[in-house]
């Protein structure tokens, strides 16, 4: 499973990447939209985990850009508040979202679920 994490909170995203890596997941991270698009262009990712609110663009806007370029990529969203979920569900059609602070086991489970449900590399 190749995963791209995108969140503007550097300490959050770098530590989460380290933890996922300890679980055997091939993970890279970006701290902004431009950074994410550049990294995604260099390697094939099965799944992207996107923060909903980032400077310059929302997670949904980034998802749109990534999905256009990489149609096979799956997405999971991270939100700061549960109240954003209605907006998220209504706008993206995705059921994969988690509220911060996240439970890493739940995140890994959602990753596997997303790939199993829509197809993807072996987990």
């Amino acid at each position, binding site marked *: 499973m190749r995963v791209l994490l995108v969140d503007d909170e550097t*300490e959050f995203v770098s530590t*989460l990447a380290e933890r996922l890596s300890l679980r055997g997941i091939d993970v890279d991270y970006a701290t902004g939209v431009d950074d994410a698009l550049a990294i995604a262009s260099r390697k094939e990712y099965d799944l992207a985990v996107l923060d909903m609110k980032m400077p310059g663009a929302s997670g949904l806007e980034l998802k749109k850009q990534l999905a256009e370029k990489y149609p096979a990529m799956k997405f999971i969203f991270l939100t*700061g508040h549960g109240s954003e979920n209605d907006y998220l569900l209504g706008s993206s059609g995705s059921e994969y979202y988690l509220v911060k*602070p996240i439970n890493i086991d739940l995140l890994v489970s959602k990753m596997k679920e997303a790939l199993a449900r829509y197809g993807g590399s072996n987990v």
Partner: protein
Amino acid sequence: MGGAMSEHADHLGTQGLQFFGKVSASISHELKNVLAVLNENAGLMEDLSFAAERGKAIAPEQLQRISGNFSRQIRRADAILKVMNRFAHSVDHSRARIDLTELTTLVATLAGRLAAMRNITLDVIPPAEDITWETNPFLLENLIWLSLEKVMACSEGGGAVRFRLAKEAGEVVLSITAPIQLPADLVTNLPAGQVQLLSALAARLVLGPTGSELEIRLGCRESPAVGEEATGGEGKKG
């Protein structure tokens, strides 16, 4: 007349609550982010300790890095809560003599996260000498916030927004300079609540000479306490 004054107070109260709500929501987002970082670092320590139980050595620098992350986030949360506390206490007095640079800096700090989301940086340029003003602190914070929202809404491409304070011809002028030219209609057709806010503060909102500054002009007659009879939007001179 009593009815009009009551309606006036209601508009100000509703607008004030909306302002309080927006600030509270922004602060809660920031604190959520702090908790998310702390949660991941606590989780990483747990992961490393499980690995150590299985015989994998933990490098001291890993623990030092995690410890550093904890300390940074605790300092960050402390700073957020100090600002929140100062803001919460701004409703303590309906009239107080305040340092305008301090008050402007407080509003800029509160709006920092929302500005960052738009790729906007906020800079408060202090005046050569301190400028104090006797007014309703919370209402003035609300006016600065609303004015900043207008400027940020026009600054779609991001950039630097600067606050400058100056004394000018008997008025105190707080200029909020945008990275772009502001539309002329920015200071016309204001919502009723904003007109009343200006009136309560004896302030007026005008575009500056270059067209990129939104100016809050506080008139010579220092603002009445809420509930006192307020004059129109134009501050009186003299």
